[in-house]
């Protein structure tokens, strides 16, 4: 094994150090994209993959360049490589963080239902009212975070779940409820509900989410979350919203039994 002060070994370690510094160049390219071009793109997975590939290419190009220079007899080529790398890192660090969010740059923000929200209206990217009808499982934690607010003294949440029922025949058990909605109308009704609730109580934020499709036992089919300055209003508003939703929204449920039969549940006529 060659002694540690063999110039070939020293050169190798110098080269490794220089290669590490080369990471500054990919950082620079990423920073360039982030600061100058569309910042929303910086979060897009395809662009991240493209940037990662560009970073690796840059790295290999630099190493190849170093090899070429070394072959021409430039033994201290690592110095040039290191300087370039350092330059890359310094440029990245020097790029100012403007502190701007996507919103303030005027990019389109969409609400949780995909509806466009005019950026002028948002100080907070969350819409004060969230109305959702969707096939995916509901999350109470998500609804709570949608309505959380520094001005709120209380958050009331109602979660409606599929309840086990018996039919008298021990072999015939309820296994799920299938929900169907006239989505265009139910969405409109739920937004009206939100508006009417705001007329009656000082609501800060609210979220109404209803699931369609199959909901198994114990799973949430509807969530109503309301935040208000004082708890009495939160309870009252939450209760009124779910009661009114149940009596008026254009949504229907079908009981799915263990023997394969189904029955539509008939409650009261659509009134709102």
């Amino acid at each position, binding site marked *: 094994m060659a002694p540690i002060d063999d110039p070939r070994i020293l050169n190798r370690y110098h080269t490794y150090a220089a290669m590490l510094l080369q990471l500054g160049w990919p950082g620079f390219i990423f920073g360039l994209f982030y600061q100058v071009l569309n910042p929303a793109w910086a979060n897009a997975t395809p662009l991240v993959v493209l940037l990662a590939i560009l970073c690796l290419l840059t790295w290999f190009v630099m190493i190849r360049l170093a090899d070429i220079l070394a072959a021409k007899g430039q033994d201290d080529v690592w110095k040039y490589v290191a300087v370039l790398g350092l330059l890359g890192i310094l440029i990245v660090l020097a790029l100012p963080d403007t502190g701007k969010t996507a919103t303030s740059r005027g990019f389109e923000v969409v609400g949780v239902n995909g509806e466009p929200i005019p950026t002028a209206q948002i100080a907070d990217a969350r819409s004060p009212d969230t109305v959702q009808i969707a096939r995916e499982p509901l999350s109470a934690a998500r609804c709570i975070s949608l309505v959380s607010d520094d001005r709120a003294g209380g958050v009331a949440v109602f979660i409606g779940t599929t309840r086990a029922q018996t039919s008298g025949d021990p072999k015939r058990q309820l296994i799920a409820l299938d*929900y169907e909605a006239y989505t265009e109308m*139910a969405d*409109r009704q739920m937004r009206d509900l939100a508006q009417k609730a705001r007329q009656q109580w000082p609501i800060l934020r609210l979220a109404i989410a*209803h699931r369609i499709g199959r909901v198994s036992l114990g799973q949430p089919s509807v969530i109503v979350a309301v935040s208000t300055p004082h708890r009495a209003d939160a309870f009252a508003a939450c209760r009124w919203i779910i009661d009114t939703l*149940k009596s008026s929204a*254009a*949504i*229907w449920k079908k009981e799915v039994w263990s023997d394969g039969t189904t029955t539509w549940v*008939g409650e009261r*006529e659509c009134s709102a």
Partner: protein
Amino acid sequence: MRIQIRFFASLADRAGVRVLELSLADGASITDAAAALVAQFPSLSGDLHRVAFAINYATAPAGTILSDGDELAFLPPVSGG
């Protein structure tokens, strides 16, 4: 005039269809549309007295006059939530 008919839940199961187009004389009301549909889907004859009606996503009484291009929905008793 042509209007779009929407059926839901038990009605859709009974009629065997969820969406269809209906041709009606100008000035026809929801009641006229219902009569035309019962003629087309005899299996619905007993059901339509318990349904609510909606024109373009808003509830409407049976006597409401329809316009060309309206979407008329027949809504069985609701059971959401």
